[in-house]
């Protein structure tokens, strides 16, 4: 399958869920899917997995800043030379995402990273422990957020 066929198949899967609002093609080899409700995320991933459309290549999270009050999480699936990006927006405060581990076991370490670096609660994560940060890292302080202040580390001492 070339990237065009892959993306046609993928957009067929994604648009068979009525509630998905937006599919865009930023470049010929990439398809962006804006997932508007978190409940849709896992069914879409199941659909991609069933059709063997790529592996979960990475989960990228971006803090859009204190003013936007939102974070954007992008799940990248890479079949062949195509890229499927599932985009989710979640609020910065009390951010919650469902765990993909039951569908994609390899997602565990990416999700553990999201949890400690951005403070996103992942529901259904089997080992929600810290992966990278040390044990004495201050609670409630997330280093990859835009407003992270390194001073919290010296106050601790």
């Amino acid at each position, binding site marked *: 399958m070339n990237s065009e066929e892959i993306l046609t198949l993928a957009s067929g899967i994604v648009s068979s869920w009525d509630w998905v609002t937006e599919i865009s093609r930023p470049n010929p080899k990439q398809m962006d899917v804006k997932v508007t409700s978190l409940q849709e995320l896992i069914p879409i991933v199941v659909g991609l997995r069933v059709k063997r459309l790529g592996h*979960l290549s990475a989960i990228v999270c*971006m803090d859009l800043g204190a003013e936007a009050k939102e974070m954007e999480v992008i799940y*990248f699936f*890479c079949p062949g030379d195509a890229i499927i990006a599932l985009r989710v927006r979640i609020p910065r405060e009390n951010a919650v995402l469902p765990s993909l581990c039951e569908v994609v*076991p*390899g997602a565990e*370490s*990416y999700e553990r990273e999201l949890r400690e670096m951005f403070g996103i609660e992942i529901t259904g994560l089997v080992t929600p422990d810290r992966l*990278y*940060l040390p044990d004495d890292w201050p609670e409630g302080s997330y280093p990859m957020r835009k407003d992270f202040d390194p001073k919290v580390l010296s106050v601790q001492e």
Partner: protein
Amino acid sequence: MTTNQETERFTISIGPQHPALKEPGSFQFTVDGEIVTKAYVRLGYAHRGIEKATEQRNYIQDLYLLERICGICSHIHATAFCLTAEKLAHVEAPPRAQAIRVLVAELERIHSHFLWIGVSAHEAGFDTLFMYSWRDRETVMDLLEGLTGNRVNYSANVLGGVKCDVDKEQKAAILAGLDFLEERTRHYFDVLTNDSMFLQRTRGIAVMSRNQAEVMGALGPTARASNVARDVRVESPYAAYKQYPVNMMLDTRGDLEARFVVRLNELFESFRLIRLILDTLPESALTVRFPRRIPGGEAVMRLEAPRGELFYFIKSNGTDKPERVKVRTPTISNMTSVIKLAVGHQLADVPMILAGIDPCFSCNDRTVQLTNARNGSSNTMTWEGLRQHGIEFYGGKRK
């Protein structure tokens, strides 16, 4: 003294000192007698916050910063960053620069795979092979130094091209070096697939089926040894791989031996590719002008590092600094397979299973703590001790 099977369950923590890689790790293996029943990983002991640091530096500074993520595959990180930034800025490096990027990347793959042969041979107690392969690795390190001026962080890339060119003398030196390395690789292939002592440690150990590898998200040679056709150089050719296609090396067996065979076959493929590039190096400039400020946008790039797919994501915001840089290295994806594969195996196999994914760890001394889960008594041994345990465990079985 009465002992109950239940009380004989130990948790063994290996690590956390792995100073050699971005993902140094602490592993905890719960064992029942000799069999591993549970595995747990904790990383980040050398997490330097590079992703965060890139947001405060401009693109040129980031190039040098990101090249220092890994000491073994430094070139692939710099190439990944350059290609992603070039995609964002709509700049394309000239063909000669792209070919030299691939040339250095393949030399780096040779150096990385030779290093890995040595490390895993050492873990199996085959120190002679370790010494020889690291001696031979010096040849490729010298070639890289001759080409770029550096042994480790080659710094061959600049945004919009490369710094170094290949002249006639360098070409002759590389060809001579390759002949020597190819002969040595043939010898290692023979040793690693025929030496009965070594096969005892690799054949049929840590078998990962194709489905398992796919589900766990294994990448690179680890996945290809389980017959998962996943190689970014083939699937989505970048830089000059379109002009210089790569043959994918697959193996159906999925055990440790297959991982050796796949990597050794990849070495032969790299030799072929480098010779081809040297013969047909296109003539062009080495760099093009690259803007200081990159217009807002997002770009994704996947490259095949020696250990598997490397993922780069950059979001730009119109300034000379990126808004967000995300790096996903292959070891973090392959780590899941170690955790799942170790369960059910002998404790003595753990060093080889870890080494099997090539997590770039050098033979550092690590403390291993044995703790009795029931009464809290603990017993400390070093990584060296665990390695020795593995060697003696298999040595004892020998006739």
